[in-house]
């Protein structure tokens, strides 16, 4: 049972991206990206490095501000069609708060205990009282299998444990959407499974998610849709099994040919 069970028929888009463009100087990283993700859908973004998939993910959370286009997440709209207007910090923060993000390098706050890492969002952004936030954080840590490590420091954890704390920290904000930016790429192969298990569990609970990943078998099994990106364009998008097993585009086929080992 995967996120596919909750797949709607596209009538209720949770994420809508129209005409998104982004350049770093003369380098056009995203060239007119259009994307629609229904509520409860899991999307895996694959593609070679430098294809723009991480920039797209960061743009969805406004960590990287687009130059043009429009992003709507859960009914909240950010319009960049007037060009690069300087957005107010308050509006950016409010938009980001509704979306959880998990990074390749975990980015836990090293000066705080595990449970404080999970509590800080609800306490300082949502203004929750500490007792409520603590109870919720304890619950989330149990959910990712780390209830016993609540008082540990991030540096005492393994990579897989750190990433599970990072997931709990993102979930503490009760996001409508979770974004994973190569969440398992920095992990020892032996630790990848425990993080993927948590992501799979979220998919089963109907969380809308976009994952940038190199785990092709995982993308095929857990995602509803796979998007293949190259050179700042979406080259192919379709049903996960179809894109991974029988890609239509030559570029997708060529890219996937490097992963046969991981697809068994």
């Amino acid at each position: 049972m995967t996120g596919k069970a909750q797949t709607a028929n596209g009538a209720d888009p949770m994420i809508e991206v129209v005409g998104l463009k982004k350049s770093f100087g003369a380098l056009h990283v995203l060239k007119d990206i259009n994307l629609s993700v229904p509520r409860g859908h899991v999307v895996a973004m694959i593609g070679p490095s430098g294809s723009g998939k991480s920039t797209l993910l960061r743009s969805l959370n406004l960590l990287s501000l687009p130059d043009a286009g429009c992003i709507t997440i859960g009914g909240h709209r950010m319009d960049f069609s007037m060009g690069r207007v300087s957005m107010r910090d308050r509006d950016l923060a409010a938009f980001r708060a509704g979306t959880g993000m998990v990074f390749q390098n975990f980015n836990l706050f090293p000066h705080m205990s595990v449970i404080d890492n999970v509590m800080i969002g609800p306490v300082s952004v949502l203004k929750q009282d500490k007792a409520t936030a603590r109870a919720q954080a304890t619950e989330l840590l149990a959910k990712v299998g780390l209830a016993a490590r609540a008082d540990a420091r991030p540096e005492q954890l393994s990579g897989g444990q750190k990433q599970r704390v990072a997931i709990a920290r993102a979930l503490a904000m009760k996001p409508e959407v979770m974004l994973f930016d190569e969440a398992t790429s920095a992990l020892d192969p032996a630790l990848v499974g425990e993080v993927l298990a948590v992501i799979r569990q979220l998919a089963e609970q109907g969380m809308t998610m976009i994952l940038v990943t190199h785990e092709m078998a995982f993308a095929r099994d857990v995602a509803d849709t796979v998007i293949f990106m190259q050179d700042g364009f979406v080259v192919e998008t379709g049903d996960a099994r179809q894109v991974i097993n029988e890609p239509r585009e030559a570029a997708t086929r060529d890219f996937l040919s490097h992963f046969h080992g991981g697809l068994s």
Partner: protein
Amino acid sequence: MDYQWDFSGLWQYRGLFLQGLAYTIGFTILTIVSGIVVGTVFALARLSGWKIVTIPIMVVVELFRCTPVLVQLVWCYYALPMLIGIEIAPATAAFITLTMYGAAFYAEIVRGGIVSIDAGQWDAGRAIGMRRGQLMAKIILPQALRRMVPPLVNQSVLQLKNTSLLSVLAVPDLLYQGQLVTSAIYRPLETYTLIAFIYLAVLFPTTRLAHWLEGRRT
């Protein structure tokens, strides 16, 4: 070398030395606090990236970093009143100069500490919806502060030693009192030896304490 060292005459002036020490320590603490406050404001303003504030601040910082404190003190006391038309008391001139001199160095320490924090920390804070000020106060500064402790202590030790220059403006710090005592008992060697020991007695435990604090926090 058959100089007869005689410290006995100094004891009667213990009150003066203590008063001088109080001035020295008082000025040091005041200008460390004001210097760090002004320096932090400079650092944050520079990090804002707005040229309209960053350029004037860089000019001020370089002006104070690249001229001797003694020159700054004298200039601030004699020349600045001519420019602004307001007479400045020696202690005020000394306070302004040491604050700005300290701020110029503290600003670079604070800025360096902040920019040394990994960009991923900013990303992570932003991703949970924290605003710039919150992120700075709860995520970035607490981590940067730890890295800033050793250079801040170094600079503050210098700050204490720099207060000895206040004597040129007749601010009655430790060194100035020493000069008074010298002119009274004609025992400069003993007086300055004693003064050196007093500075050492204050600073050595301070640096040890800082060292211990630093080791404990990491």
